[in-house]
């Protein structure tokens, strides 16, 4: 089967005065048509750099994609010229940025910004584009959408800007929408609106979605499969139900353990992940999680484990995944996870 998008061994580095930042260290994943993938991990784990590399948006210098392939539509996107890449961006793969102002030009009206891209990529006239822009804005739940086309970005609230960003990303019917933490700056109720919106759009127009977040809750409600990143590596990936039911990496387990149960009747003490986030200036030789891992043995310090299948469609990069899985199952039982 051919995939819509195939990322192979992607590696991105930043060459800075302090040294080489090993931001993304050979990640591999696939995305099928209409499928949704969640990328989770703590701050600095390489989630944004990973997708910016796919989009050809790594600032060079200091950054560079140093290895790998990004196969989309039979071509390696990493080999495209800047102008070819510009066509792919927006038209075929669109992105909603962590900070909505990144994608909005403060001195142009929303209408102007939305129609420009559509006229370019969809070859439609200005009037049709304006009509479509208004439709998109009301689709993302903006009240009096048609009247707001003449407003500037600063006239919108944070949540509204985020929705304008989504409308813009959707304007050229992309086959892949990449959303980089589009909800962290938002309130829970607005966040729920946006998650709900993307879910409905995904079903309606069959677009594939990559959703980046550090919130395991958002992932659980939105995506079909998950890649967990740590220190620039994908350390575990699986269909979402499988990941929660058969957690097979100590870091994923650690993330789940540090969250309180929403509906817990008795107070279970939280189990934090000990230690500090990794230093990306060091070349990773051992398992990147070893310094914080309660399962670590000598082997973990000698050799960095690669992703290996632990169940159908389920991969873990851990020498001791079986032990972690056993404890994860035990935990499910003790917290009274009666199905």
């Amino acid at each position, binding site marked *: 089967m051919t995939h819509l998008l195939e990322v192979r061994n992607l590696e991105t580095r930043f060459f800075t005065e302090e040294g080489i930042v090993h931001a993304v260290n050979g990640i591999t994943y696939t995305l099928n048509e209409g499928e949704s993938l969640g990328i989770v991990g*703590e*701050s600095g784990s390489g989630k944004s750099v990973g997708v910016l590399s796919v989009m050809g948006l790594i600032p060079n210098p200091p950054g560079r994609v140093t290895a790998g392939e990004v196969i989309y539509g039979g071509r390696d996107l990493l080999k495209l010229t800047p102008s070819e890449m510009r066509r792919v961006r927006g038209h075929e793969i669109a992105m909603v940025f962590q900070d909505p102002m990144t994608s909005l030009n403060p001195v142009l009206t929303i209408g102007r910004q939305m129609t420009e891209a559509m006229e370019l990529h969809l070859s439609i006239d200005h009037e049709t584009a304006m009509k479509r822009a208004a439709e998109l804005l009301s689709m993302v*739940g903006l*009240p009096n959408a048609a009247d707001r086309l003449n407003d500037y970005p600063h006239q919108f*609230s944070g*949540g*509204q800007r985020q929705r304008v960003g989504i409308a813009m990303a959707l304007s050229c019917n992309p086959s892949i929408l990449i959303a980089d933490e589009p909800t962290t700056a938002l*309130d*829970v*109720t*607005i*966040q*729920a*609106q946006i*998650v*709900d919106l993307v879910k409905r759009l995904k079903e309606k127009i069959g677009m594939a979605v990559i959703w980046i977040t*550090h*919130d*395991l*809750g*958002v*992932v*659980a*409600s939105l995506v079909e499969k998950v890649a967990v990143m740590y220190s620039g590596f994908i350390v575990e990936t699986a269909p*979402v*139900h499988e990941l*929660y*039911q058969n957690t097979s990496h100590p870091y994923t387990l*650690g*993330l*789940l*353990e*540090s*969250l*309180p*149960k*929403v*509906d*817990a*009747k008795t*107070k279970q*003490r*939280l*189990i*934090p*992940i000990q230690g*500090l*986030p990794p230093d990306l200036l060091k070349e990773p030789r051992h398992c990147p999680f070893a310094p914080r891992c309660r399962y670590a043995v000598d082997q973990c310090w000698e050799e960095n484990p690669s992703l290996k299948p632990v169940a159908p469609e389920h991969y873990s990069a851990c020498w001791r995944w079986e032990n972690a899985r056993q404890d994860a199952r035990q935990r499910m039982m003790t917290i009274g996870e009666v*199905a």
Partner: protein
Amino acid sequence: MSQTNTASNGTPSSQDSITEVKPLIEVRNLKKHFPIRRGVLQRQVGAVQAVDGVSFNIIKGETLGLVGESGCGKSTTGRTILQLLSPTDGDVYLNGHSLTEMGRSELRKQRRRMQMIFQDPYSSLNPRMTVGNIIGEPLLIHNIGNAASRRERVQELLKLVGLNPYFINRYPHEFSGGQRQRIGVARALATNPSFIVADEPISALDVSIQAQVVNLLDDLKSELELTYLFIAHDLSMVRYISDRVAVMYLGRIVELSERDEVYDHPLHPYTQALLSAIPIPDPFKEEKRQRIILEGDVPSPANPPTGCRFHPRCGYATDVCRVEDPEFRNLGTENKPHMAACHHAEKFV
């Protein structure tokens, strides 16, 4: 005015045991409005009604959670209680003494007993001061002890929050987010306060670090018999740490009761929507549950809607909601009050 009717403030009343009735903090009809000024003359053209008449008690030793959307007035409530902002109206009592009527020097004395932990561990610590000076600053301000005893106290505090006392001469940038938040906690504890306002103490931290700080706050509470006002927008953390929970919307408290009561039987439609929006980190549960998706944006506190402030976004709103401000009333029992401000709350009892 009648004798303070504690039940109406969502605090269990027990007339007989005098010791129990006394709350540590009483907040009465507290208001904080920020003037909006325009033009060269800076004439006042309106006011942001950030906090608009909130009343509640906090009993000694409890943690009261305060939740609500961004901009609803949580931080302003916390700061106004501590008199870091002067209230526009209303009063705050600490152990029965009015803080607003207190003279300057008396208030200064009382301040030692009330401290604040701030939201952002990155900007709330002065980057040019050593950790020792940051933590010891409140001691200096309040003229407590001498240089040697202060240093000793700082080392003790570092140990208390799980940091190496050896760090005393380091600077904030040498610490991680979680460690910096511990420094903030140590600083808040320096003067031996009995009451702490923790304003989103974990929001800026990574999930893997949040649990460390929450556990620390929990341990310190029992060890030092602290009382907390815990402000947050992460509803699952609030449930985890609080004894009672207050839900705020546009400058008002709309619901207040015991934690499980609020989470299991929410009586206000806003609370219901808020709870239904919590992302649950479990795909099996997510599939089964029904979300209430609110329409529209949060209105501006400079121009709050008439009647019930929630009515433009509420699925249950009727004519009365559009014109009449609902009373904050007890729909629970006297011993287990469940306060809510909704005309139709009976529907949900």
